[in-house]
């Protein structure tokens, strides 16, 4: 990867906020922050940290990490941010050390004693400011996790650091505003889509599908007792019409009962990016809707963080082992295809197609081969990008950063730098990126770096390839 030129560096790190706002908030970060009480910040940070430790089991991980962290920087070879900037502060274990040092100094016996003995004043306001900047330069992609010989999950530290910061009022405004609308707003979802607009959009899509495929493909709303209740990233209802059409078409082909609840239809959960408290509250909203409609399985749309937050945390906050199962829509489509309930026409897509693994789906090995098998079934020229699968490079907009518009130059030049070249090297006409975050970031990247590649969802292509059979009355096109 080409290192940043001086001009690019200046552009990527240019201040995005007025000097007077930075001075008022004493916070030299590039993302907008709503005004907050900035008094006694170090003390309040430590109080929040103590409260988090008291009510969670982060201490287990932190105790382990402060013992084993070798600060060896092996993780640096995996970090696309560090590889782009070459700045030591972007090495994952350097960033994690910002928080681990505070834990060691203030929350371990030896650290407290040593601090008193040596007269170490402890956490300073400068360190809080440094963390507020550093933890949002990381995309929380967890790729460095593989390289750490000690098994430290630096993205967990990033998450915890952001969580504590958010407890004292420091969180990107773009995320905070969306979450507020989702939890307390009139529409109850992050993109503020009212139910009449939802109905209008879905009717429009059904009409379009009738026109294009000659098949009646409904979006069932509020059906009680359905097998699947569908939660896509709510932004799909504005941006990703083709993906939604694919989702509906798959169900039309399999005949399973599914529904979208008008009480709550947003899979997005920014809590995964910066606050466990929000993570829990958003999942409770999901649970209420699932219970209202007595659905049997939670189905998440094409979105990495929405899928991971539900799959791995729905049981945590909503019923443990008794919690309803959570599946991603690609898992569902793959299983139906394997069972022969979803018929796909081979060689539907002739152009070169590649696949981008969203970090939140692939890093754990959860959804990796399923979309590839589906793509190989419908594309005549499928190519892999390198590296891929669990080791794939993040789009550069992970960890919520893609929703922060003001840091776009950073996402384009630093975060997504490696990704742009990786996609260019495949020469593919289509890049399948089954995640609302990745789609947005990658489209902007392709434009910015002049790569001639169209970013689509997996279901966008499945929609074209589904064979509804003669019984459906379709024209089979």
């Amino acid at each position, binding site marked *: 990867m080409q290192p940043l030129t001086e001009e690019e560096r200046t552009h990527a790190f240019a201040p995005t906020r007025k000097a007077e706002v930075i001075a008022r908030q004493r916070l030299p970060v590039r993302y907008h922050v709503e005004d907050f009480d900035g008094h006694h910040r170090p003390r309040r940070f430590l109080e929040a940290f103590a409260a988090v430790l008291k009510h969670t089991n982060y201490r287990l991980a932190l105790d382990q990490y402060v013992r084993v962290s070798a600060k060896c920087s092996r993780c640096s070879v995996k970090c696309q941010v560090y590889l782009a900037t070459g700045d030591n502060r972007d090495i994952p274990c350097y960033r994690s050390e910002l928080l681990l040092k505070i834990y060691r100094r203030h929350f371990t016996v030896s650290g407290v004693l040593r601090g008193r003995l040596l007269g170490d004043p402890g956490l300073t306001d400068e360190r809080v400011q440094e963390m507020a900047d550093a933890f949002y330069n990381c995309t929380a992609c967890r790729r460095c996790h593989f390289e750490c010989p000690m098994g430290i999950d630096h993205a967990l530290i990033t998450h915890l650091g952001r969580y504590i910061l958010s407890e004292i009022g420091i969180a990107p405004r773009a995320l905070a505003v969306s979450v507020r609308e989702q939890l307390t707003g009139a529409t109850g979802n992050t*993109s503020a889509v009212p139910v009449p607009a939802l109905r209008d959009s879905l009717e429009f899509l059904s009409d379009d599908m009738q026109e294009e495929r000659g098949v009646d493909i409904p979006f069932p709303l509020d059906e009680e007792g359905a097998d699947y209740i569908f939660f896509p990233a709510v932004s799909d209802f504005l941006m990703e019409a083709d993906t939604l059409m694919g989702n509906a078409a798959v169900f039309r082909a399999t005949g399973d009962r599914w529904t979208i609840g008008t009480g709550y239809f947003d899979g997005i959960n920014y809590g995964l990016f910066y606050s466990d408290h929000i993570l829990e509250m958003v999942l409770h909203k999901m649970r209420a809707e699932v219970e209202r409609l007595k659905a049997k399985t939670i189905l998440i749309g094409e979105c990495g963080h929405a899928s991971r937050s539900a799959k791995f945390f729905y049981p945590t906050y909503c019923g443990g082992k008794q919690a309803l199962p959570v599946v991603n829509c690609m898992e569902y489509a793959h299983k139906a295809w394997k069972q022969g309930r979803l018929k796909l026409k081979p060689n539907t897509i002739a152009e070169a197609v590649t696949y981008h693994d969203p970090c939140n789906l692939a890093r754990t090995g959860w959804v990796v081969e399923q979309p590839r098998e589906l793509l190989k079934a419908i594309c005549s020229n499928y190519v892999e990008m390198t590296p891929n699968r669990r080791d794939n490079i993040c789009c550069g907009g992970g960890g919520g950063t893609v929703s922060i518009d003001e840091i776009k130059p950073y996402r384009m030049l630093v975060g997504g730098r490696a990704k742009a070249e990786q996609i260019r090297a495949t020469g593919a006409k289509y890049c399948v990126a089954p995640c*609302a975050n990745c789609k947005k970031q990658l489209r902007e990247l392709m434009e910015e770096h002049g790569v001639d590649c169209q970013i689509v969802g997996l279901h966008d292509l499945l929609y074209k390839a589904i064979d509804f059979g003669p019984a459906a009355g379709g024209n089979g096109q």
Partner: protein
Amino acid sequence: MPTFEVNDHKYEVDEDGFLQEPGIWNETVASDFATTEGVTDLTEAHWKVIHYLRNYYLQFGIAPMIRKVCKETGFKLNEIYQLFPSGPAKGACKLAGLPKPTGCV
């Protein structure tokens, strides 16, 4: 509250330059905001998109699906990007006086 001043008009805007009070929109607002989004001349094509967005917003309280914008106005997505270089969600919505889209948009 930041303000945006142009052609002797003064508007209250958010930090991204979107009109703070969508209700006060009129065509002059669109003309005044055009330069900030890289639109130099508002043609009939621009107005077609702006009016469609505005009317949809007044009816439903949100911008329409992008696919619907394309279908109803007859422009392809790349043509909309040519009209509004900063895109439909940012540029076109700002000129039509809609609030800034939130979430993963």
